[in-house]
């Protein structure tokens, strides 16, 4: 297939075959004997917009369903707020322009087939499946539409996707926190479903996550033994980012910015004290922001404890109680990365994430090959901690032995 390069010049590249594209990842997995290691990807994606034909019929409200389905059929409007963005880098990351050329077997959900291809190549045993475009659902101007879209997506995921496949996908479902009552209803409706390990708040939004109206939602999640994830993203439309003239800048800052914003509110308002048994996971903001925020909040808290009276320890201590996904892991300064791992107690709090198929994905080897990690830390981070957290079972005896060896075997 031809891709357009400079001045309209055409460059021929092979049609997309995920297994072939990731052949070098498979070599890495073989070299490192990843079959023997339980690897859990706590942040992988699919393109739910390609499945809206199946998802939208699950919307409950007749009028809103008709509104979205009729408009979509004619291609007249988008359903989820979109953004300017150049994730494909002008076709340089070829799986974006070639995505629709990849062949899959008829009669099986395409997203799941593609997911299993990249998981197999990387040596990943389980993936937490998150949407792509719907990461912007928190920007929707109509909260009832946010509620309906999350409801439809969650029904489709729990009734079609998760049951239909080999049990290697799990999810933290989309939580429409703009409407706390509706969010609570979705926790009650879907919280017990197979493959559901928790709920996910998209952080590209400015709603205060510590608002009193949301406490019943968090309590319901905690009571069910589920987890709460905050998944970040970029937003060129955010007023502060309108000065940025390059996507690189918006992307680099945006993911960290939204997690910094919401994590600050979460910590300073004592949510760790209110919900001490609720596992909280901060996803896809990289790691460099965490030492920054720990130091910044500790510094201010020491002088202004009266503004955070619920805290019984320093903000950084609460942050160390939470979990963080590894991707996109900043790897340019290995000393800084080692310091970051120490500051966040990575051995017990860091969860490997690929973010595949997005452009800045990380392979398991990015963790496995770090020179400063112990064997226990490697096993924990690539999957052991997630196996314990989400109750995932090993897929073979060698994985089971490793989970037991490092204290992560809780399933069965």
């Amino acid at each position, binding site marked *: 297939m031809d891709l357009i390069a400079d001045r309209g010049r055409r460059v021929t590249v092979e049609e997309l075959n995920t297994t072939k594209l990731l052949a070098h990842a498979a070599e890495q997995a073989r070299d490192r004997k990843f079959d023997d290691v339980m690897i859990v990807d706590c942040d992988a994606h699919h393109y739910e917009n390609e499945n809206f034909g199946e998802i939208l019929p699950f919307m409950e409200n007749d009028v809103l369903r008709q509104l979205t389905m009729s408009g979509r059929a004619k291609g007249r409007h988008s359903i989820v707020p979109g953004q300017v963005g150049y994730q494909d880098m002008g076709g340089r990351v070829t799986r974006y322009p070639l995505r629709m050329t990849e062949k899959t077997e008829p009669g099986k959900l395409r997203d799941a087939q593609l997911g299993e291809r990249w998981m197999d190549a990387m040596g990943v045993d389980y993936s937490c499946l998150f949407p792509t475009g719907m990461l912007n659902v928190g920007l929707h101007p109509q909260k009832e539409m946010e509620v309906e879209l999350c409801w439809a997506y969650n029904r489709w995921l729990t009734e079609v996707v998760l049951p239909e496949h080999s049990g290697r996908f799990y999810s933290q479902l989309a939580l429409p926190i703009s409407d706390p009552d509706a969010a609570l209803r979705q926790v009650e409706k879907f919280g017990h479903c197979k493959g559901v390990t928790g709920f996910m708040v998209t952080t590209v939004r400015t709603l205060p996550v510590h608002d009193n109206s949301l406490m019943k939602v968090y309590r319901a999640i905690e009571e069910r033994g589920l987890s709460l994830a905050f998944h970040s993203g970029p937003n060129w439309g955010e007023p502060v980012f309108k000065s940025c003239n390059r996507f690189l800048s918006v992307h680099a800052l945006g993911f960290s910015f939204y997690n910094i914003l919401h994590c600050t509110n979460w910590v300073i308002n004592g949510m760790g004290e209110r919900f001490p048994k609720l596992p909280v996971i901060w996803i896809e903001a990289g790691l460099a922001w965490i030492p920054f925020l720990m130091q910044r909040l500790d510094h201010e808290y020491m002088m202004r404890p009266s503004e955070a009276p619920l805290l019984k320890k320093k903000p950084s201590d609460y942050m160390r109680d939470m979990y963080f996904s590894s991707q996109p892991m900043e790897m340019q300064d290995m000393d800084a990365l080692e310091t970051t791992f120490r500051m966040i107690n990575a051995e017990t709090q860091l969860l490997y994430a690929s973010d595949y198929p997005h452009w800045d994905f990380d*392979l398991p080897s990015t963790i496995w090959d770090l020179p400063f990690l112990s064997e226990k830390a490697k096993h924990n981070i690539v999957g052991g901690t997630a196996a314990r957290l989400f109750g995932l079972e090993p897929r073979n005896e060698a994985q089971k032995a490793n989970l037991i060896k490092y204290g992560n075997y809780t399933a069965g």
Partner: protein
Amino acid sequence: MAEQFIGRLSEFENGSRQIVKVGATEIGVFRHEDEFFAYSNYCLHQGGPACEGLMIAKVEEMLREDKTSVGLYFSETDLNFVCPWHGYEYDMKTGECISDRKLKLKRFEVVQKGDDVYVIA
């Protein structure tokens, strides 16, 4: 170091590339401006297939004398090849990673013997 036959000269048009396997190593062989360039097909970032993606002119930004920007443009002379996994770009003529030229793909020599083309690996 051994010579491995990789094809006839006529099979390498300008602007084309082939990925050849020599033992356990993959090598990307490009023909650009009537020259051969051959590099390791393992990206220095995460090991992606560095030579299998888009080939595209280097993007540059022109400044006026008063330091204001004219904007972005494609180089008339410099071509990069791009790892399709994450977009790491390499200079076609040197194999240097353009975002950090200290990083350089291993280069292999290509020799022509009559109409036959060999890579030395």
